[in-house]
Each structure stands twice: as C-alpha cells, then as structure tokens.
C-alpha cells in the first residue's frame, strides 16, 4: 500500500523554481531517502507534504489524505523533524518531550515503548536545557518529540547534517529499529553514503528528481566503466588523466582518483602504460566499486 503519493508537484518562489514536476510513491513501512545537496528542493518538498506550504501545481496524498484538502487530518498522523533544530531551547529535555506529547493529546508513558531505545541515550541529561545539548543529542531529542504521538509517517529533513560520523551511524541504526513499528520514513540527506541505508532513494538536484530506485539498482544502472587510480602526485595525475582521449570524467574520491570512461575496451594495463609514459611512478589501478556518489555526479552531467 502507498503511504505517500506525489504527482507532478511544482513550486516557485518568485523567479526561483524550487521544485519541477516531482512524482514518486512510498510504500508503507519503507525508508525512502531524498539524496541531494542544499538548494535541491528537499525542504520545500517536505513542507508541501506536511501541509505547511501549498504546491503551485500537482497533487499528492499522505495515507490517502489529500495534502491540500485534508491538511488537518495529515497533521495528526505525521511526525516532522525540520532541518533546523526546532525544539524549545530553554525547556529541558523532559519538558520538551512532555510538551510535544500534550500538543498531540497523548501521554509520554503510553507511547514510551516507541522511543525507549532512543530516549535511553539522552535520559541521563533529561534535566538539561535542550539548547545545551550537543548536535547528536539534539537530533535524538527531536526524533523522540516527532515520534511520541505514534505517527504513521515520519518526515526527517536532514537529520544528520553537521553531525559527526559516529552519531550519524547511531542515528541510522535507530531509524532501522523503527521499521518494526511499521512507520513509514521519508528522510533527506546531503550525505551520499547514507543512500545505501534506505529501501528506495530519489536523487534530487535543482528541483528535479534525476532518478528513483533502490540504491543497488541505481548503482547497477551506471552505464560506464569506472577505475580507481592512485599515484604519488594526485594533483598532477588529474591533469594528465583529463587529457586521456577516452576520459569522460576524472575526480578525487577519498584516497584515490575515479576515472570514468565510455570505452568498454579500456583496461587497467592500457591506462597504466599511458601514465608511465607520462613519468608517473607507483601507479596503482583497479576497477572501482561504483558508489551512489559516482552515479549522482554522472546524472548531474547529463
């Protein structure tokens, strides 16, 4: 069953196009990721689906309710965690939680099982003001507050932006745990490596969805050959590789360079020979594991 449906949604702010013909569907209990940089339109889309902003064109529904007509119903059944920390900075951790529960007319006690895993991380600091928490802890508290009324659908707008790698990993483990509660999760992130943690992803750039598919299908859809290359001088290596006749793209990728080519017949030996003729020593070269980030950059260039 579809939890969320969006059909041909567009939105402009004055001259600036925020969203252009956005269509997608999310099944119940699924983790669906919107992967894209700042300014891609992720926040606008989340605001439209949570009934905070009206679309200029197109229509959509959340759990069968229309995002324009049935806005009151939708607000009762969704949890929304905005990108900017939105809790009350001067209230303590437990006061924030009690406040959000009371707004939705539920008790913290009755729904505690939903948040117990997450809340246990911040409970030692329950008397601390929310504004004094570290980044990772703030996000955990915000997630608890968005969950306390047992929403059917959870909207998480960049919950891990600016959060360190350890806290990011923990946060995703907590989201996986929520799958058992059959809560549908729509999550956005600028970190490409988080795509693999979703059931389905939409790659979004400049207000348009470039591709929607399960992460492994996006990777297997990469239609070019990709090499990972290392040598002594990475900086000069790039400019040499850019001049290679079969070069489609070359860019740094972690400790290596990724070299993309449309030439199916190009092999590691040929590239190695080419670089050694250019006086590069210690060249290490192999076929690379394709990542979502490679696919994203390839789609951006289309």
């Amino acid at each position, binding site marked *: 069953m579809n939890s969320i449906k969006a059909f041909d949604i567009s939105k402009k702010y004055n001259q600036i196009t925020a969203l252009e013909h956005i269509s997608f569907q999310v099944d119940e209990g699924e983790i669906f990721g919107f992967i894209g940089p700042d300014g891609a339109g992720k926040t606008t889309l989340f605001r439209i689906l949570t009934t905070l902003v009206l679309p200029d064109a197109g229509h959509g529904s959340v759990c069968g309710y229309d995002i324009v007509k049935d806005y009151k119903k939708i607000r009762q059944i969704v949890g929304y965690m905005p990108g900017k920390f939105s809790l009350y900075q001067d209230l303590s951790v437990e006061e924030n939680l009690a406040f959000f529960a009371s707004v939705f007319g539920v008790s913290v006690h009755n729904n505690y099982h939903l948040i117990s895993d997450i809340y246990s991380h911040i409970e030692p600091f329950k008397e601390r003001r929310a504004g004094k928490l570290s980044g990772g802890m703030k996000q955990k508290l915000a997630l608890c507050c968005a969950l306390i009324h047992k929403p059917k659908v959870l909207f998480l707008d*960049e919950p891990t932006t600016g959060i*360190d790698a*350890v806290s990011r990993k923990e946060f995703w483990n907590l989201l996986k745990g929520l799958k058992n509660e059959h809560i549908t999760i729509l999550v956005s992130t600028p970190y490409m490596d988080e795509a693999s943690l979703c059931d389905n992803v939409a790659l979004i750039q400049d207000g348009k969805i470039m591709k929607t598919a399960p992460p492994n299908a996006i990777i297997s859809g990469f239609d070019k050959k990709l090499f990972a290359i290392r040598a002594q001088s990475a900086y000069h290596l790039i400019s040499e590789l850019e001049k290679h006749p079969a070069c489609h793209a070359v860019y740094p990728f*972690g400790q290596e360079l990724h070299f993309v080519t449309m030439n199916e017949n190009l092999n590691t030996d040929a590239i190695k020979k080419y670089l050694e003729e250019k006086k590069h020593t210690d060249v290490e070269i192999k076929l690379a594991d394709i990542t979502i980030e490679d696919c994203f950059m390839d789609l951006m260039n289309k």
Partner: protein
Amino acid sequence: MKSTEKVIVVKDLVKDFGSFRANNHLTFEVYKGEVFGFLGANGAGKTTAIKVLCGLLKPTSGYVKVAGYDVYSQSNSIKAAIGYMSQKFTLYEDLTVYENITFYAGIYGLKFKEIKQKSLALIYKLGLEAHTHKLIKDLPLGWRQKLAFSIAIIHNPEIVFLDEPTSGVDPITRRQFWKMIYEAADRGITVFVTTHYMDEAEYCDRISVMSEGCIVALDTPYELKKKYGARSLNEVFLELVRTKQSI
C-alpha cells in the same frame, strides 16, 4: 612534507569554561603550505580551539603562536594575518557579489587601487562576470562557498581557517572547492579545515582527531589507516571516537 616552517605552534593549550574543560592540553604544530584537517565528534572542542587560534578567545593556559604572533598579547596581528570562512557565516546576503568583495577587502586593509583590481580579477577567475551586481542571496550555495573562500584569501593570509566549508554542497562543487584549496596551499597559504565528510579528510596532508577535549590522533591519512588496520579514514574515526565517547 612541503615545508618545515611552522605557522601554528600549540603547546599544552587548556581552555576552561567554568568547571568544564573544553580543550585539555592540546599540543600540535602546523607547517606552512600544509592542508591540515581538524576532525572530531560534535562537542569535542574543535570550535573552541579554532576560536583560540583565530585570536577570538584567550586560552586558560598554554603556549599558542599563530603566524608568529602570540595569542595573549598580539591577537589583533593574528586577525590581520589569517582568513576565515564557515558554512554558517560567509557573506552578506543583502549585498551584491561586488559589494561583498570590496567590503571584505577593505576590512582586510587592502588599498583602494588594489581592491578594485583584485575584485575584478576574482570575479573573472570565478566566472561571475554576469552576476557581479546580483545579491548574494540569489546565488546558488556552491557559488557562494567558492566566492566566500576566494574572499577569505584575498589579502594573501598566512593561514586560512575553514569551518565545514563544504557542508551540504553538491559532490561536483565540493571537488571544485577542494581544487581551490590545493591551489591556495600551492601558493604557500596554510589551510586549516574541519569537515564531517570523511572522504575529504583523505585529501589533507595531515589530520588530527579530537575527542572529549583531547587530540587522540595526529598523522598523515596513510599512517593513521596503517596504524589502525583500517581501509578508510571513516573506520579510523569510528574506532577512535567510539571508544572514547559515551553518547
């Protein structure tokens, strides 16, 4: 190593806020023209250390010299010798591209003639000719970040501090940004950078990792991976920070 000339020297830096120790005996050095990655978990004390290095906060104790100046007595000289940009504060949104450049160049004490000439050169280099008189808020984030970085080094500082400069920027623009970082380092500008993208940490000459107010590791990416038997710096980071961190 590109150079043995030290532009940042920190010995036993301690910074307390009341009973809370944000920086607990930090000791490290940064060399001229180096790209130095300053990593750590949220709340580990990175921002405090950067504020001390920029001359914005006085240390509780310890020896800190930046660009040859002492942080206790010469903080104004430090401010003139460095550049700074962050993801949060970059440019004035209600000023145009040209106004932002000339404003900062003026603040950094460039002469009138120099300002005009450098502003035009910068606009040309970034390919922003058609956008010279556009407001910053109408520019895409990636362009803004590239412009902010160029402005932060317009006065040819000894060191530029970059606090999560590429956060939220698309993958292609992030790489263009790093190319600019390399160019600056090649010109002898030392780059001191924080990031949460672990693949970017791989691009640094050396990195330090902070946890709970202390530096728990400092070396080249290659040596750190070797030491921890890890395939990527992400693994190194998780290993180092997870063992220390409770939350």
